[in-house]
């Protein structure tokens, strides 16, 4: 999924601004999965996330002439994805999974002693986390992105991601097993 690994995002974007289709293709492939993962945090449906990602890429390529390639491409592009996602979910009248970010946290449902822990239990426990904690856990623990990548995707600092991850892991440990946590 990562074509032209020797070229930076900004170099590819600069080439795409001159109409280089191969450069744009490499950029799109590089950002396709992260964009889908980010969009999914808002929609919780692959089909809706796909629409958002296609729309975001469509807007990005049209706005490429205005992109300042001295600034990070990732921040610019993820801002487009987040804006498209917010617009899409507000049009649908559905509640944004990530907005507002300061939702009061609910207690994850605790398992009864001796119950075997399965993925569905963890899924339920993640669902009970605050939206930002959910996003951090899903992006970093489930999808495998680094905290730096997640920070860029969510438009926050890496420290914020680490804090949310730390809290989320703590709450999940308590939810899974008060004595011995499942997650490291």
């Amino acid at each position, binding site marked *: 999924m990562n074509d032209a690994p020797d070229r930076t995002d900004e170099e590819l974007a600069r080439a795409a601004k*001159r109409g280089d289709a191969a450069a744009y293709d490499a950029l799109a492939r590089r950002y396709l999965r992260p964009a889908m993962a980010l969009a999914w945090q808002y929609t919780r449906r692959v089909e809706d996330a796909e629409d958002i990602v296609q729309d975001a890429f469509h807007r990005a390529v049209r706005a490429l002439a205005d992109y300042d390639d001295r600034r990070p491409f990732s921040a610019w592009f993820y801002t487009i994805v987040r804006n498209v996602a917010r617009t899409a979910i507000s049009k649908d009248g559905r509640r944004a999974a990530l907005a507002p970010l300061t939702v009061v946290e609910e207690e994850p449902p605790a398992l009864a002693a001796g119950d075997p822990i399965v993925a569905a239990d963890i899924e339920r426990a993640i669902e009970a986390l605050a939206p930002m904690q959910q996003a951090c856990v899903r992006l970093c623990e489930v999808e495998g992105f680094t905290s730096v990548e997640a920070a860029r995707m969510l438009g926050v600092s890496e420290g914020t991601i680490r804090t949310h991850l730390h809290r989320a892991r703590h709450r999940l440990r308590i939810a899974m097993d008060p004595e011995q946590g499942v997650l490291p």
Partner: protein
Amino acid sequence: MSDLPQSHLPQEPEYWEELAAQIRADAAGPLADYAAVDHGWYGMLAQRAPWLVAASVAAMLLLWLALPERGPSVAFRWIESSLTPSELAGTLVSGAAPPTVEILMVQFPPSEEERR
């Protein structure tokens, strides 16, 4: 970590290839537009065209102001030296003989340069 839920995103490489192809196809138009824009020295020149035009106009104005003052133009001298309508009428009506070509022809006074 094996207990963690699986990604909700599709895992099939074909899915991602297809999605990438759609995005690539969608971008074809705008990318062609970008490619059509000149990016060579003439493209850069075109981008700076408004400034170049303004600089040219300013240069022409400065040149015009710097030029030495000249005498009246040929047209102005013709108006100055030609017969007035009443003089022309008098010549045609009350003259003993028809006016000669020399009378009707405008006699230009010598210009400053000619006098020198």
